[in-house]
């Protein structure tokens, strides 16, 4: 009965993986690569559309791959949580792909041609296969309903992410990629050890079977700690964040956008899935207090660093450390309130950060291309030169700090109101205070943008589609904010 839909969800993973192989075989040939990218995006859009329609129509469902169900086979599951992440991931991927294409292929002036040949950086031949591999891996993370499958998807996404950071080619990028690699494999192995303990305790890895079997005992607690530690390392929760700022700052801008928007979001989604959903009964609440406290420190630390760094992309990367902290500060609220509103508050915050941060990184990539660097002190007055990129950065920043009308506001409002109902006051204060710190570093950039200054030498025009893609994502934060109105309205 679910034949056509089965095929449709499978395309979210199959199309990018097949595209990855195809672009590799085509060796980055112009025209052919574009056709593969277009087909992949089309398949992903149809599949996402299909799964969202089915979730809204008839609720959560599972897909048995090759008609082999659990416990012997591997299942994919879609519910409102994974559908929300997948639905938001799609426009982020499309915008980032357009920008990546723009940066790889934008026409370069003859004056620059000589400089450019020496400039290290990704080529179409190496970039697209890794890019599509990451796309498939991240989609698999949101779809898998099996712990071992999740481990494989984590490794797939992690390795593709590391390699994409390395495509920037310069020495700092290679060093950052290696740091990212070692943090990433340590996280994966911690997760795998947790998987081993879960299997030993419950004799199954299927999340639905585990949900009904989960019990509170010592071996489950150790397993949850190992699974969680691996995921928190991959999500870059303070103090396990040291790998993130350099990797996200050194990567090519569209890669930074995807890493910050989606690749650190997938482990957050999995912590939510494993700790507060599947193993809800087995989780000691004190763990969430601890994680929330780390998150609060992360907000202050990441924001403080974002106020001091010299480069725009580093600033946005440290902002990711702060925003990941914010997401984990929300976990105790979701647990204490236990309500649908609080859970959606966290989801809105996470997907809102995904869209906003992607638009900010893409805008920063455009600005860096236009200026030839991203040193803030030499970019004064960029608002007049690149207004669209500046709007995109500003609007994304507004969503991060939670200006009403953006998706960031909806998330914070739902979390604050549900938190106050259960007197989770310190967490509500932390969520609210993060807005002030966010405002400070967003304003730091905008103040540089609007100051008038003569155009620096070497500034070059930017392919329009780069700025427009960043801007479209920024507008999406407002569209999502307005669209989430029905969730926010019925509250007192």
């Amino acid at each position, binding site marked *: 009965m679910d034949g056509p839909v089965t095929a449709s969800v499978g395309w979210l993973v199959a199309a990018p993986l097949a595209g990855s192989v195809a672009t590799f075989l085509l060796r980055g040939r112009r025209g052919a690569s574009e056709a593969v990218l277009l087909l992949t995006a089309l398949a992903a859009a149809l599949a996402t559309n299909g799964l969202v329609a089915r979730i809204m129509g008839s609720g959560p469902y599972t897909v048995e791959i090759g008609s082999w169900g659990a416990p012997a086979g591997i299942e994919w599951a879609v519910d409102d949580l994974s559908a929300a992440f997948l639905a938001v991931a799609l426009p982020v991927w499309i915008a980032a792909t357009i920008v990546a294409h723009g940066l790889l292929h934008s026409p370069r002036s003859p004056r620059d041609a000589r400089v450019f040949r020496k400039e290290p950086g990704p080529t179409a031949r190496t970039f697209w296969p890794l890019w599509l591999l990451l796309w498939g891996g991240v989609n698999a993370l949101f779809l898998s309903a099996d712990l071992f499958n999740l481990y494989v998807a984590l490794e797939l996404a992690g390795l593709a992410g590391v390699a994409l950071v390395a495509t920037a080619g310069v020495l700092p990028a290679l060093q950052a990629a290696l740091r990212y*690699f070692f943090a990433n494999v340590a996280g*994966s192995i911690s997760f795998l050890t947790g998987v*081993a303990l879960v299997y030993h305790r419950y004799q199954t890895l299927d999340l639905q079977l585990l949900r009904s079997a989960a019990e509170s005992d010592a071996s489950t607690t150790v397993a949850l700690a190992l699974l969680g530690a691996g995921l928190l390392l991959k999500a870059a929760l303070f103090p396990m964040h040291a790998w993130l700022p350099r990797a996200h700052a050194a990567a090519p801008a569209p890669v930074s956008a995807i890493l910050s928007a989606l690749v650190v979001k997938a482990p957050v989604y999995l912590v939510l899935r494993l700790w507060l959903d599947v193993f809800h009964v087995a989780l000691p609440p004190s763990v969430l207090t601890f994680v929330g406290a780390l998150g609060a420190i992360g907000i202050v630390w990441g924001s403080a660093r974002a106020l001091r760094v010299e480069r725009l992309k580093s600033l946005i990367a440290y902002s990711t450390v702060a925003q990941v902290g914010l997401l984990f500060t929300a976990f105790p609220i979701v647990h204490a309130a236990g309500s649908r509103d609080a859970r959606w508050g966290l989801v809105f915050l996470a997907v809102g950060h995904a869209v906003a941060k992607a638009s900010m990184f893409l805008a920063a990539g455009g600005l860096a291309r236009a200026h030839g660097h991203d040193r803030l002190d030499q970019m004064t007055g960029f608002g007049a030169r690149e207004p669209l990129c500046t709007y995109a950065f500003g609007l994304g920043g507004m969503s991060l700090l939670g200006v009403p009308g953006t998706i960031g506001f909806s998330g914070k409002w739902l979390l604050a109101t549900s938190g106050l109902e259960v007197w989770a006051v310190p967490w509500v204060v932390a969520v609210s205070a993060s807005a002030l710190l966010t405002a400070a570093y967003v304003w730091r950039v905008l103040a540089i943008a609007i100051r008038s200054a003569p155009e620096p030498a070497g500034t070059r025009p930017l392919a329009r589609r780069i700025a427009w893609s960043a801007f479209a994502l920024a507008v999406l934060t407002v569209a999502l904010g307005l669209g989430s109105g029905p969730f926010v309205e019925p509250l007192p």
Partner: protein
Amino acid sequence: MTSLVLYPLAGVVALALGLAGLVTRPHLLTKVLAFNLMATGASLLLVGLGHDGTASSDPVPQAMVLTGIVVSVSATAVALAIIARLSRLDPDGVERSD
């Protein structure tokens, strides 16, 4: 009976040694070896826990370990490729990472 305890325990020891090497050793190749040791430890733990002392063992952990070996081979390849590129740009950078 002893092998029921011995294999998982050896796995945990390998995991801990690997983690210590990954964190403390500055040489990049040592770090790669350390991560391989961690992966081996995790595999040993998986298989060791799946082993119940009888002749017929649970095949699922063994299937997982096979996949895990493929994953760590690929991961090692990625790391070595990046280290090779890095050593061309900065020949001394392989011995000291921060």
